[in-house]
């Protein structure tokens, strides 16, 4: 194989979105809003996924997320997992646990699946099902028990927003009861369906502060027995986070049709060609595609990033490109979450709106759906 270009990063993580089919309808889902479009329903054949997993391992990928949509909806999931194991990848099944049949899960265990992550929408069954738009809670509880029975390390994931963030305490208790080793409390990131539902999802500052207190107390109480991840929503920060560890630095995401992106929302950026693993190797795409090179490094930066007063260019990589695009119309602008951005007021305004103590009427959810387009 040709030599690795000097200084080019090696990816650590491959996010394999195996399908956008999913029995749930979470209004915060980060999948694109046009998941029903024919380009996504033309799913990549299993053999291509298997080749991509091997190529990923050769590029230096260590962690593989088998996700979606609902990855269990792909009937070849066991074979795909086995290939990942053979390639030496550490595999995580990111699942809604619908479906989670015992036979299949045992087969996954045998195929070498390393880790199971199950999403929950709330600790209260009724509210959880209302948020997910499907009767699912009891089946998730059973699935978690099965995962533990088979001795999988279990992560419980709960995306937080206005309608469940006040329940952080009971969500933590639930994770303990389910035997989880990790709990991801991820405040909603405003991509995909979450953008459509931003007004209904964005918590108030007071809610966030209470949530953070609850997490702190629980960490003290539980120690190392449960690792709790708490990711603050960008909107309440003054400096951006490095999106995905920096554009095209650590991660690659493959969509159900084989399109390859540096992050979930990158397809929203217009006028950049998207390469597909049906036409090119993952290596070629990672190293040479227009998409991966568009914002790699720091040369593309504008002011204020170019002469950042804090010299943070290599820490936050200018923040999220997709958020910059969504809020300023320019994907190469400084992420408006940054206090130095001339567009920071858009963030401040969104916060103020969310902080309105009595919104006239709580905004209704627009549920994720596969509307054929």
């Amino acid at each position, binding site marked *: 194989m040709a030599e690795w270009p000097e200084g080019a990063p*090696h990816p*650590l993580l491959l996010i394999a979105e195996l399908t956008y089919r999913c029995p749930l309808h979470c209004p915060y889902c980060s999948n694109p809003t046009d998941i029903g479009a024919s380009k996504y329903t033309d799913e990549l054949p299993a053999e291509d996924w298997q080749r991509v997993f091997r190529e990923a391992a*050769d*590029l*230096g990928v*260590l*962690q593989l997320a088998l996700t979606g949509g609902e990855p269990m909806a792909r009937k070849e999931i066991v074979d795909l997992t086995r290939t990942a194991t053979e390639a*030496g990848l*550490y595999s*995580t099944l990111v699942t809604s646990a619908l479906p989670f049949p015992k036979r299949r899960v045992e087969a996954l265990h045998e195929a070498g699946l*390393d*880790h199971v*992550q199950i999403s929950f929408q709330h600790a209260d069954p009724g509210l959880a099902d209302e948020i997910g738009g499907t009767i699912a809670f009891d089946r998730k509880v059973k699935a978690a028990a099965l995962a533990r029975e088979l*001795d*999988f*390390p279990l*992560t419980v994931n709960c995306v937080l927003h206005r309608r469940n963030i006040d329940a952080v305490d009971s969500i933590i208790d639930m994770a303990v009861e389910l035997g989880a*080793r*990790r709990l991801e409390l991820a405040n909603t990131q405003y991509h995909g369906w979450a953008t459509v539902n931003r007004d209904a999802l964005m918590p108030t500052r007071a809610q966030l502060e209470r949530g953070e207190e609850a997490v702190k107390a629980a960490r003290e109480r539980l120690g*190392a*027995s449960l*690792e709790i991840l708490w990711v603050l929503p960008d909107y309440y920060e003054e400096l951006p986070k490095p999106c995905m560890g920096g554009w095209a630095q650590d991660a690659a995401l493959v969509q159900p049709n084989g399109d390859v992106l540096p992050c979930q929302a990158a397809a929203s950026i217009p006028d950049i060609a998207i390469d597909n693993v049906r036409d090119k190797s993952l290596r070629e795409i990672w190293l040479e595609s227009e998409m991966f090179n568009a914002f790699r490094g720091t040369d593309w930066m504008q002011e204020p990033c170019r002469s950042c007063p804090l010299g943070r260019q290599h820490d936050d990589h200018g923040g999220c490109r997709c958020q910059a695009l969504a809020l300023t119309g320019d994907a190469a602008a400084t992420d408006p979450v940054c206090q130095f951005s001339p567009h920071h007021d858009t963030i401040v305004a969104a916060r103020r709106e969310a902080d309105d103590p009595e919104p006239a009427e709580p905004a209704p959810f627009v549920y994720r759906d596969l509307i054929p387009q």
Partner: protein
Amino acid sequence: MAFTRPKLATGVRLHRDKVREQDVLLFPEGALVLNETALEVLDLVDGERTLDDIAAVLSERYEGANVKDDVAELLDGIGERGLVVEADG
């Protein structure tokens, strides 16, 4: 608190990263790069050997040097992250 009979926690495994030419400990959503000493110790952690057994093997390898405290400290550090646990019984 030193381990008596350590083992890797479920879902934690050693992996040779051929691309970066280093050894890593893989676990849910993470990787820890191991130096040579850590690798040597973790290679011996199997849920069967006691801390004393592990120290004895290494001591023999290094001409009788007393390594028990270092091994205990190293495993404690990794144990704090929940990656090494006490084997049952």
